[in-house]
């Protein structure tokens, strides 16, 4: 009975999520993790539902974009950091939400991927120095994953997109203050060529 109540609350929560984010195109190549949206090992109490949904917090994923168990290893050839440099996406403080103003860059990354099918994309998530090193590693990963998810949603192949976090250790701009910090909260797209 308790379970039933929980499930119906979950359903309401999911409907609200749907309403909050509009009609999202069904993502292609997204691995749905069993239980990712409720169930045994999640923060499953009804009180936590609004935390999990995007009703009050748009800063969450609509789905989990896991790697499939058959994900091929990333290319081992040279890395080109220049070709997609202008598409670097910037984030708000302590946020992994991809801002509307940044989404056109993702379209250009997806176009590049369609035109260069042998190349992989490594998305690097970076943070400013205002979090702890331990926390920023996780936040940077989440930023990179958010970009990966959006690329998959607009049709890019998840099998060719990899993520990594550098936390706060590789800033784009040195110094303190918002002008430096805002340049450091970013996701960079690195093109990884096939070996030889």
């Amino acid at each position, binding site marked *: 009975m308790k379970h039933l109540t929980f499930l119906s609350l979950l359903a309401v929560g999911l409907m609200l999520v749907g309403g909050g984010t509009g009609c999202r195109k069904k993502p292609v190549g997204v691995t749905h993790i069993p239980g990712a949206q409720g169930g045994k*090992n999640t923060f499953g109490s009804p009180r936590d539902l609004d*935390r999990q949904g995007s009703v009050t917090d748009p800063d969450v994923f609509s789905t989990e974009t*896991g790697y499939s168990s058959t994900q091929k290893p990333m290319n081992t050839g040279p*890395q080109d950091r220049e070709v997609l440099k202008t598409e670097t996406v910037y984030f708000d403080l302590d946020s992994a939400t991809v801002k509307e103003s940044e989404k056109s860059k993702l379209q250009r990354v997806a176009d590049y991927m369609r035109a260069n099918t042998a190349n992989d994309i490594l998305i690097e998530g970076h943070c400013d120095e205002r*979090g*702890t*090193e331990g926390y920023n590693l996780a936040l940077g*990963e989440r930023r990179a994953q958010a970009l990966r998810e959006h690329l998959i949603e607009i049709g890019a192949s998840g099998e060719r997109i990899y993520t*990594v*976090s550098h936390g706060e250790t590789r800033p784009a701009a040195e110094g303190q203050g918002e002008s430096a910090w805002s340049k450091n909260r970013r996701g960079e797209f690195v093109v990884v060529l096939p070996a030889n």
Partner: protein
Amino acid sequence: MKIRNLFHLTTSIVFAACCLTARAQQELKIERPIDLGIKPIPISMTGFSGEVDSVLRFDLYIGGFDFVANDKAQYHVNGSNNGAVEGRVTDALSKAVLLSKAYSGGTSRSQAHALANDIIFAITQRKGVAHTKIAFRADFGSSSEVFVSDYDGHNPVRLTSDKSDVAAPCWVPGQRKLLYCSWKSGLTQVLSHDLGTGARQIFLNVPGNAYSPAVSPDGRRVAVILTKGGSPDLYVCNIDGSGLKQLTKTRDDESSPTWSPDGSTICYVSRAGTRAALFKISADGGEPKRLTVGGSLNLTEPDWSPDGKFIVFTRKMGGFEVCVVPSEGGSATVLTPGEDPSWAPNSRTVIFTRREKNKRVLSLLDVPTKRVKDVAQISGSCSQPSWAK
């Protein structure tokens, strides 16, 4: 004479034991989460010179002692280091000799650490940590490497030379072995590194990245953050990498797991609302519970004390502060500005990172007296310390 000394020694131990009992009872009534504000123990010290003198002063300062004039001291330490190190501790009041010992072998630095440990034990019955090791990350601008050193930063040894990035070194308890994150492959992998043989291997072969390994106190299991399922989640597996099990499935970013001493529970960082908070979960899986930490926001980098009583962590309300909270939850006590604390095996001393203008330095903290002292510096920017246990 010997017999008389022995008698004094016995009485002073009995006396000390009585004091301890009385204090233990007092502590029960105190509602503060940890018995802070303990005054350093005043001692006098004579007879040592050079490196031995400075080692002893460093070890005893961070061990909770104050150096005062002879007539204000509760204990007298004297000795010499002409040749081998020898030292003696006398109770100023009873004149009882609590310690009289000479040391042979090793470096004079190591002999001085041994004497410091013996002095601390003779006076407080606490085991010293002067012979323990730490591991940490040193950043050189374009790359970072793992280092191991004495607890005071001396005798640093560079463990990696990958010209890549590393993070989160973590000791396998009771072994000369570390786990740490490496970016050498382009993605983030956890490597295990045997300090005896120098052999390295990839700890887990999974798609995605691996961050923040933490070995259970019995050395048999590892908690780790993996991204193979999407956003960073908490997993556990056996020390050989087998038996991988997912503990959290959230869309938030989990980080920094730490084990309870009995290995039953893992404390880690996730989100509550929009802010980072501490959670506990059974190491076998189950419902996570938020750890109540009164008056504190943005909590990260927890480390569970080896005696199980406390969790130190970093909070950010303005600047970064190292704080401590009872492991069952309660109000937080701010210890010092700084971040990423790691307990010593004595559940009393903590090593943490301090931000300076252009670099980060490692510093030691004696929790009850809140005394802080930087460890010896190397050229890089040092952070993410892990104390060998």
